[in-house]
């Protein structure tokens, strides 16, 4: 059983509780950095895709998991990030400048959306974000000169100080670029959550009334959360654009929005790690399904290539998680870890959920 002996407040303030935890993260980063030397190109591309989804997932996690604001149309911000980055690069702006600008553009747009959005709550907000998504999609089609309209837009290769980071010609470099971006954003996000800003997000999520009484400006906090969330997602979007290299609005469909929701929900709502777990699931499941389908075909001759099967399986996984493990994959991982840490003294029903009753949300 692991006992952490704390000797100063820093033990609680630090990101990692002790040297072991720090070591584990260092090991993970090392493994990730060495991946291109170990793994073939196909799987490296998949891992890159997973990283990009994790980044997008973190963006949504900040908004939904940590600030309690629904967003069903977050793919809109992926789109804004992608198009801004590609459009700027197409007029000659170097990536090192267009990338942060894309994030800022998405963030600013998010903050503007926040102005009306923070006054809405619950289901109204969810549907408003959905509406927003449809509107952004239409605007992309209409703004043809910038976005290439229905035809699409080409995201030029990334070139930093002469080193080529193009996703096709130099996947290793592109992968490392994504890894660095994701690592930095994760660090910033974790810092945010252990600071007064992060606490104010949680306060607004859990009890708006208390938050007000504690001196937290709820409107401003929500707007900040919106802005940061959309900025993160915008960065992910621009990376996604470069990953695909040539895209149009269909890359950012409503199903992508829903996939993002899946990532944060199945991954574990309210935990940064949840975004990663969810992203891994989103990338892994289609692979597993196609492998299973191929083996079934070759071994038993059963052809299961029906359209919509992927989404069906995702939906069933989602439903199963919501019913049996609302804390998502990360929540399940925490329980497994606790079982091992307490072994053999883990108590049965340690995580048993109490029966809860819901009060109306119309009286807030």
């Amino acid at each position, binding site marked *: 059983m692991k006992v952490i002996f704390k000797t100063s407040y820093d033990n609680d303030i630090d990101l990692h509780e002790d040297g072991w935890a720090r070591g584990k993260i260092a090991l993970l980063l090392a493994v990730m950095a060495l991946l291109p030397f170990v793994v073939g190109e196909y799987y490296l591309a998949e891992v890159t895709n997973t990283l990009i989804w994790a980044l997008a997932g973190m963006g949504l996690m900040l908004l*939904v998991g940590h600030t309690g604001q*629904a967003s*069903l149309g977050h793919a809109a911000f992926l789109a804004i990030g992608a198009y801004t980055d590609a459009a700027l690069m197409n007029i000659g702006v170097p990536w090192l400048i267009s990338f942060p600008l894309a994030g800022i553009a998405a963030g600013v747009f998010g903050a503007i959306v926040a102005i*009306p959005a923070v*006054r*809405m709550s*619950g*289901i*109204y907000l*969810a*549907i*408003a974000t*959905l*509406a*927003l998504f*449809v*509107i952004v999609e*239409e605007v992309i*089609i*209409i703004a043809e000169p910038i976005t290439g309209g229905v035809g699409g837009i080409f995201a030029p290769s990334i070139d930093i100080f002469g080193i080529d980071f193009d996703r096709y010609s130099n996947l290793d470099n592109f992968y490392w670029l994504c890894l660095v971006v994701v690592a930095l954003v994760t660090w910033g996000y974790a810092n945010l959550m252990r600071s007064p800003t992060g606490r104010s997000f949680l306060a607004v999520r859990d009890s708006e*009334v208390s938050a007000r009484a504690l001196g937290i400006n709820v409107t401003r906090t929500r707007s900040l959360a919106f802005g940061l969330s959309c900025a993160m997602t915008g960065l992910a979007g621009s990376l996604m654009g470069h990953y695909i290299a040539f895209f149009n609005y269909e890359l950012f469909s*409503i199903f992508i929005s*829903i996939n993002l*929701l*899946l990532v944060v*929900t199945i991954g574990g*709502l309210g935990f940064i790690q949840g975004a990663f777990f969810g992203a891994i699931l989103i990338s892994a499941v289609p692979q597993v399904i196609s492998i299973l389908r191929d083996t079934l075909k070759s071994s038993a001759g059963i052809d299961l290539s*029906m*359209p*919509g*099967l992927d*989404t*069906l399986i*995702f*939906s*069933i996984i*989602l*439903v199963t998680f*919501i*019913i049996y493990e*609302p804390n998502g994959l990360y929540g399940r991982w925490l329980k497994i870890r606790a079982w091992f840490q307490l072994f053999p003294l883990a108590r049965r029903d340690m995580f048993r959920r109490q*029966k*809860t*009753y*819901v*009060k*109306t*949300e*119309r*009286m*807030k």
Partner: protein
Amino acid sequence: MEIIQLIVGGIASGCIYGLVALGFVLIYKATEGVNFAQGDMMMLGAFIALGLVNSEYGALAFIPGVILAAAIMGGVGYGVDRFVVRKIFGQPQFALVILTIAMGFVFRFVAGAIWGFTPLVLETPFAGKVFDVGGLIIGYEDVTTIIVTALLTMGLWAFFQFTKLGLAAQAASQNQMAAYIVGVPVHRVNSMIWALSGAVSTIAGVLYASKGAIDPNIGLLGMKAFAAAVIGGFGSLPGALLGGILIGVIEPLAARYLPGGFSQMSPYIIMLVVLVTRPNGLFAQIYAKKV
């Protein structure tokens, strides 16, 4: 004349949005749950009716076929609540949102698996027949739609106002534990409301199918119905209908008179405008909590 033609057609299609929104608001009013699969329930209801009524499938007479379809879909609604939604009893609203989005995908898959993805046409007794009112052409199906919608809305409103089940449902939506304590069988009430919603969706689906071909993806119309429900203000049945009609009328007018692409966005723009000015819809049902 053209405007009136558009408006009448708009009112009819608005009624369909309104009916779907009605099914949606039914569930919200009774269980405070949000059913994002409402549009897909409408789609499934339409397909079940098609499967019963069309000559190449069930070849039943129209009205009995529709009633049977409504009953079946009611059963599906009951089943969804009984076996899936009930399992997340007590979890926050967001969980249900995700769950119903997933259910929507399942319905779409089932419909696609049984009837395929190519558009099919429902055989209705009023196909092609029209009224000619002084140059104004109104299809039978539009008139039927408007009349049926009006009757259903009034009926449902009366249900919630005056019947025991309706009041019990409202009580359960406001405070589950208190409803239990006074003897309301909350679970069963919820399931019955879902069944009712399923039946209403079927009617909406049949009316929609009477205007054109259907395929498993028409459930996405549900998004517009949500906009309608929001405009009306959640929890308000007449509001949902009003929202639907508003959208139904503005859409064709926008398509006719505004540059392309705007008509697609118009329901959502209206909705956002309403939300910004009256954050809880036109017939708002949010009260301040006493702390």
